[in-house]
C-alpha cells in the first residue's frame, strides 16, 4: 500500500531526484493559487514559486486509511505559515508540524504527521548515500558508529537482511513516537548531524546487534517493528554500535566510610552514566556530620558536601546528547544526616546544601514503620558506630539496630521523621519510599547468608544484591500489552510467544554487553538478572472497557503477570538446560525449590505448569537469577504509542514535554466513543480542555464511560496500590509505582504510604501532584462577563464557605 518513496509518492527512478514537498521547477505559468509571490529556495539555491496544489498532492499520498484527515487543510495552513524565501527543508518540516498541530481536533493527524516525518527522514538518509539497510550500516561503520561485528554480520547476509526491511511497519507509528525516534534514536552523521538510518533500518540494526544468524535477526526485528515488545532505551541506542552498553540500570553499593572509596564511586558513576545507564547509589555507610575522623582528629562535615559533589558530577555527564545523566541516592532512615538528606531537593535554603540533579530515596527497614505506627522514638546512629547495619535485614537488623541504639547520636519521634519524609514527597515528588526488609526477604538472590540488597535503582523497579566490588546491572525490555489485546480479550498464546523471544534476547545482552566498570563486569555474568516489564496495561483496560479500579481489572492484571513470570521462568529454565545455570544459582532461593510466588505464599492458577517448571529448575537450574521488573517505560511507551507501564492515564488530554518539544496527547479510546455518539464536537473538545482533560463534567457522557475514562487524579489511589500488591507475587524484582494526589496533605500521604507498606509492596516511586496555580488558559473561551464578587461583610467573613481564610472558629 505504501511505497518506500519520498513524499511525492513517486517511486524513485534512476537519475530522477526524489520528489519533495518542494515544487518541481517548471516552466509552466505560475498557478493562481500561489500566495502573494511566495517562493521557496531549493537545495541548489534557486527560488521557485510555491504551489498549494503540489503541496496538497504530496500530502495526499500519505492519507491512506486516514479518512478523517483533510489534506487541503494541511496544505493551505502549511503555505500560510511560510515566509518568502524559506528553504525546501523548512517547507517539509512545516508540513509535518502543521499536521501535528491538528491532532487536538482529530487524532488521525498524528499518523499523517508521522508518515510525513518518516518520509522526510528517509530522504535525508538517501541523500547521504544510503538507499538500503546494508548501505546504511556500512555508512555507520565508516563514520565510526557501527561495530565491526555488526558490519560483518550485515555484509555477510546482505541480501536477506535488505529484503527483510518492511516499510509497512512505519504505518503503526504515531507522531510523538517517530519524533522521539528521529531526534534521539537514529544514528546521526557525526559531522552534518542528519540521520543515516530510517526507523526500520534502526530496528533491524538493533536486532542484528543481538543475533547470531539472519533468521533470528529477522524474527526479532519483526517482533519489535510490530511494537508488541521493545527493548529498553540503552539497547535501542547502542545495539550494534561500537559501544554496546545496553543495560538500563546500575546499582552501586554505598562507598565505604573512607575518602578513597568515595572518590572511586564518583569515577564509577561518571563512567556508568556516560553510556546511558541510570544509577542507584547507596550512601548509608558514610559517617554523618560531627562524627570523629581519627586520622586528623577533626569532625566530619557529613554526607551533604559529598552528595553535592556527586550532583555536579552527574550533571556534567551528558549521555551522548540524548539525555542528562541521572542518579538516585538511597539512604536508610537511621543515618544521622537523614533530615538534611530530605532537604536536598528543596528550592529554598543554602544552595551549597542542595542537589537539584539527584533523586532521593528512603531505604526503610520495617522497624522504622513499626515505630511510626506505635508512635515510638527512633534513634539516629552513626554508621562508624554500627557499620554492620547496611548489610542486615529482617530480625538480624532489628536486633543489631536495637543494640546500637545505646550509641545513638540523636533520638527523634519516628512519626516526626515520617512526617518529614511525607513533606519531601509532597514538595518535590522525591524521597521515594522503598522497603528494605520486604525487598530482601522476597528476593531470589538472598538465598545464602551475606547476600544483601542494599538499594533499588533509579526507577525503583530493580532489586539486586551488590557489594563493594560488585555493581548490580540490569537489562530491560517491556511487552506492550495493548498489542496483545483485542475486544475479545488477551491473546495468551501471542503473549507467551513474545515472552519467550524477549527473555532469550534479554539474556543475550548479558554476554554482548559492554560494561563501563569492572564492578559491573564482575556482577552481571554471575547473576545474569534481566527485567522483563510491561506497558500498555491501561490500553488493555480501555480495549476491554474495564475501569482501572474494578475487580476484573485487578484479576486480569494479576493473571497477565502470572503468565509473564511463568513463561519467563520456563524460558530461562530452557536456557539453563542448553547453557547451564548462572554461576551464582546455588546461592539463590530457587536452588532450594522456592520460586517467587512461594516466597509470597501466593495462590497460582496454572498449577500444572508451575509444577513442571519447578521440576525442570530442580534438574538444571535457571539461567537468570531474576526475570521480571516493571520499569516506567516513559520513552519506549511513546515510541510504541501506548500508555506507560502499569499506570492509569494521567489525563484524557495532556501534553508531553521532552527534549524534542511539546506534544499533545489525546485519549483515542475516548475519541472513538465520543465519535460513535456524535459528541466529538468543538464544544465538547473545549469542555475537556477547560477541565484539563477530565470528562466527569460532560453531561452527555453515560456514567459507565465516565467511570472508564477517569484519570489518575480521579482514581482512588488505594486501588493503584491494591492492583500493584495483587500482581507483586509475580514480579520477582519490583515495579515503578507512581502515585497521584492533586493536592497532597501530610495526612493523606502518611495514610497512603502506611497502606503501601502494609500491603507488602517492596518499593514505590514518584508522588505526582499538581501545581497550586496555573497559567491562564489562552485558547478556551473566556467565561462570559465575570460576575462581580461582592465584598464580604463582617458577618459573612467568618462563613464556613471561606474556611481557608477564616480562622475565627478554629
Amino acid at each position, binding site marked *: 500500500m505504501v511505497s518506500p518513496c519520498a513524499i511525492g509518492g513517486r517511486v524513485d527512478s534512476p537519475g530522477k531526484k526524489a520528489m519533495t514537498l518542494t515544487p518541481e521547477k517548471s516552466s509552466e505559468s505560475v498557478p493562481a493559487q500561489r500566495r502573494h509571490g511566495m517562493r521557496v529556495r531549493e537545495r541548489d539555491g534557486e527560488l521557485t514559486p510555491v504551489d498549494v496544489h503540489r503541496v496538497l498532492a504530496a500530502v495526499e499520498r500519505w492519507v491512506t486509511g486516514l479518512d478523517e484527515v483533510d489534506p487541503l487543510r494541511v496544505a493551505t495552513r502549511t503555505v*500560510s*505559515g*511560510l*515566509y518568502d*524565501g*524559506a528553504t525546501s527543508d523548512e517547507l517539509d518540516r*512545516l508540513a509535518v508540524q*502543521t499536521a501535528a*498541530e*491538528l491532532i487536538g481536533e482529530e487524532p488521525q493527524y498524528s499518523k499523517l504527521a508521522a508518515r510525513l516525518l518518516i518520509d522526510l527522514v528517509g530522504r535525508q538518509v538517501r541523500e547521504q548515500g544510503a538507499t538500503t539497510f546494508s548501505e546504511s550500516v556500512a555508512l555507520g561503520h565508516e563514520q565510526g558508529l557501527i561495530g565491526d561485528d555488526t558490519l560483518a554480520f550485515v555484509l555477510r547476509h546482505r541480501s536477506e537482511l535488505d529484503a527483510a526491511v518492511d516499510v509497512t511497519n512505519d504505518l503503526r507509528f504515531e507522531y510523538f513516537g517517530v519524533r522521539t525516534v528521529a531526534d534521539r534514536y537514529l544514528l546521526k552523521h557525526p559531522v552534518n548531524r542528519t540521520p543515516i538510518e530510517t526507523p526500520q533500518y534502526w530496528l533491524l540494526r538493533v536486532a542484528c546487534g543481538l543475533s547470531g544468524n539472519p533468521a533470528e535477526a529477522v524474527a526479532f526485528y519483526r517482533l519489535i517493528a510490530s511494537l508488541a515488545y521493545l527493548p529498553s532505551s540503552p539497547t535501542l541506542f547502542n545495539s550494534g554500535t561500537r559501544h554496546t552498553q545496553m543495560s538500563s540500570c546500575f546499582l552501586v553499593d554505598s562507598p565505604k566510610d573512607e575518602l578513597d572509596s568515595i572518590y572511586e564511586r564518583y569515577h564509577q558513576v561518571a563512567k556508568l552514566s556516560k553510556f546511558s545507564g541510570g544509577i542507584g547509589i547507596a550512601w548509608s555507610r558514610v559517617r554523618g556530620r560531627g562524627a570523629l575522623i581519627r586520622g586528623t582528629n577533626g569532625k566530619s562535615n557529613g554526607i551533604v558536601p559529598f552528595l553535592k559533589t556527586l550532583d555536579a558530577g552527574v550533571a556534567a555527564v551528558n549521555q551522548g546528547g540524548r*539525555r542528562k545523566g*541521572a542518579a538516585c541516592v538511597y539512604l536508610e532512615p537511621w543515618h544521622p544526616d537523614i533530615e538534611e538528606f530530605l532537604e536536598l531537593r528543596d*528550592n*529554598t535554603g543554602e544552595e551549597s546544601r542542595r542537589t*537539584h540533579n539527584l533523586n532521593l530515596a528512603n531505604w526503610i527497614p520495617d522497624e522504622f514503620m513499626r515505630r511510626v505506627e506505635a508512635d515510638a522514638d527512633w534513634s539516629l546512629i552513626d554508621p562508624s558506630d554500627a557499620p554492620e547495619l547496611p548489610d542486615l535485614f529482617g530480625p538480624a537488623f532489628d536486633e543489631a539496630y536495637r543494640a546500637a541504639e545505646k550509641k545513638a547520636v540523636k533520638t527523634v519521634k519516628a512519626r516526626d521523621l*515520617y512526617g518529614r519524609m*511525607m*513533606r519531601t514527597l509532597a514538595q*518535590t*515528588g522525591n524521597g521515594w519510599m522503598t522497603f528494605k526488609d520486604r525487598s530482601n526477604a522476597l528476593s531470589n538472590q538472598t538465598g545464602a547468608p551475606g547476600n544483601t540488597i542494599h538499594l533499588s535503582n533509579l526507577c525503583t523497579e530493580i532489586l539486586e544484591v551488590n557489594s563493594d566490588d560488585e555493581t548490580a546491572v540490569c537489562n530491560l525490555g517491556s511487552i506492550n500489552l495493548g498489542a496483545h489485546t483485542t475486544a475479545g480479550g488477551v491473546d495468551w498464546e501471542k503473549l507467551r510467544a513474545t515472552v519467550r523471544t524477549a527473555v532469550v534476547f534479554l539474556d543475550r545482552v548479558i554476554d554482548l554487553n559492554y560494561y563501563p566498570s569492572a564492578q559491573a563486569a564482575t556482577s552481571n555474568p554471575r547473576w545474569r538478572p534481566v527485567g522483563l516489564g510491561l506497558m500498555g496495561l491501561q490500553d488493555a483496560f480501555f480495549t476491554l472497557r474495564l475501569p482501572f479500579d474494578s475487580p476484573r481489572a485487578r484479576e486480569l492484571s494479576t493473571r497477565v503477570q502470572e503468565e509473564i513470570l511463568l513463561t519467563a521462568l520456563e524460558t530461562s529454565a530452557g536456557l539453563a538446560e542448553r547453557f547451564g545455570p548462572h554461576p551464582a544459582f546455588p546461592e539463590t532461593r530457587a536452588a532450594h525449590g522456592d520460586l517467587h510466588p512461594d516466597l509470597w505464599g501466593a495462590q497460582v492458577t496454572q498449577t500444572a505448569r508451575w509444577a513442571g517448571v519447578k521440576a525442570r529448575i530442580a534438574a538444571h537450574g535457571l539461567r537468570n537469577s531474576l526475570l521480571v521488573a516493571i520499569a516506567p517505560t*516513559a*520513552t519506549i511507551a511513546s515510541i510504541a504509542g501506548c500508555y506507560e507501564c502499569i499506570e492509569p492515564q*494521567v489525563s484524557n*488530554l*495532556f*501534553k*508531553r*514535554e*521532552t527534549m524534542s*518539544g*511539546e*506534544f499533545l496527547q489525546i485519549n483515542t479510546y475516548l475519541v472513538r466513543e465520543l465519535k460513535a455518539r456524535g459528541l466529538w464536537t468543538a464544544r465538547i473538545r473545549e469542555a475537556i*480542555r477547560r477541565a484539563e*482533560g477530565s470528562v466527569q463534567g460532560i453531561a452527555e457522557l453515560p456514567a459507565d464511560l465516565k467511570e472508564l475514562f477517569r484519570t489518575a487524579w480521579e482514581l482512588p489511589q488505594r486501588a493503584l496500590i491494591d492492583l500493584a500488591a495483587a500482581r507483586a507475587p509475580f514480579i520477582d524484582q519490583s515495579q515503578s509505582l507512581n502515585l497521584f494526589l492533586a493536592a*497532597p*496533605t*501530610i*495526612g*493523606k500521604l*502518611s*495514610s497512603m504510604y502506611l497502606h503501601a507498606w502494609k500491603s507488602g509492596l517492596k518499593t514505590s516511586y514518584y508522588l505526582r501532584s499538581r*501545581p*497550586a*496555580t*496555573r*497559567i*491562564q*488558559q*489562552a*485558547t478556551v473561551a*473566556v467565561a*462570559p*462577563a*465575570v460576575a*462581580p464578587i461582592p*465584598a464580604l461583610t463582617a458577618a459573612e*467573613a*467568618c462563613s464556613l464557605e471561606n474556611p*481557608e481564610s477564616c480562622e*475565627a472558629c478554629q
Partner: protein
Amino acid sequence: MLLDPGMDLTLRPMKYPHFFDRFKDAIKNTWTVDEVDLHADLADLARLTPAEQHLVSRLVAFFATGDTIVANNLVLNLYQHVNSPEGRLYLSRQLFEEAVHVQFYLNLLDTYVPDSDERAAAFAAVDNIPSIARKAEFCFTWIDSVFDLRRLETKADRRAFLLNVICFAACIEGLFFYGAFAYVYFLRSRGVLQGLASGTNWVFRDESMHMAFAFDVVDQVRAEEPDLFDAEMERQVRDMLAEAVECEVQFAEDLLEQGVSGLSPGDMREYLQHVADRRLQVLGIEPMYGSRNPFAFMELQDVQELSNFFERRVSAYQVGVTGSVTFDDDF
C-alpha cells in the same frame, strides 16, 4: 470601599478573603532562579537560523526590562491605592515575584550574551531598539497618568486609576507578555531553548496570577461603585487596547522581519487581536476584532504537562503542604 483613600491595617474580620487566598496560592508556587538550567540552551542558540537568533535576541531584550516596569508601577501606583491589607499582602508577594523574574532574565542575559558590550546594549533596548522603545513609551504614559494622584477622592481620580490597573493587567501583562509567551511557546513546541522555556513557564504562571488579581480588583471596584464604568470609560479601554495591539504588532514585525517558518506576522496580528478580544470579554466589553487564535501550539499550554523526569525538571510540585501524620485519611 476598596479605593477609599487610607491605610487600612485590619485583617480581622477579613473584608476581601479572596485576595488573601490569592496570596496563599501564590506562595505555594515559589520557585527560584537556581532551579532553571540554562546551560543546554547555549548549544541550541548556536544552531538557530539567523532569523530565529534575531527573534530570540529581541525577545530577551524586551524581557530585560519588562518586569522592572511592572514592578515600578506596582510600587508607585497600585500599592498606594488598593486600600486593603489582604490586597496589599498579595501585591507584596507580586513584587517579590517580579523581582525573581528580573533576576531570571538577568541570569538569562548573562548566560546568553557573554560579551559585556552586547549585554549592555540589550539592557539599553528601551532606548536603542525602536520597537521596544515604543512599547516602553506606552507603559510610561500610563504610569505617569496617575503618578501625581496621592488620594483617589473624585470619580475622575478613580477612573484614572482603574485605567492604569486595566492597562497593566490587560495590555502589559495581558498582551505584551502574552505576545512574548507565544514566541517562547513556538520555540518550545519545536524543542529548542528548554531553559528559557521552563523559566518562562514559571514566569507566566506567576503573570497569569498577577493579571487575575488585577481583574479581581477591577471587578471588586465595579461591584462597589458601578457608576465608574460608563460608556466613556469603555471607549478609553478600547482605545488603549487598540493602541497596545499596534505596539505589539510593530514589535512582531521587527522580531519576524527575517522570516521564521510557522510564525508569520499576519498570524501574529491575528493572535494578538484574539488575545485583546479576550481581555475585553473579561471586562464585560464587546470584542473588537472577532479574530481567532491561529496558533495550534498555543493550545499546548492549556493542558496538563507530563515531563519525563530524565529529560526535564518537573514544574508541578507544590511548596506549601499542610497537615500532620495520621493513618486513616482517605486517599
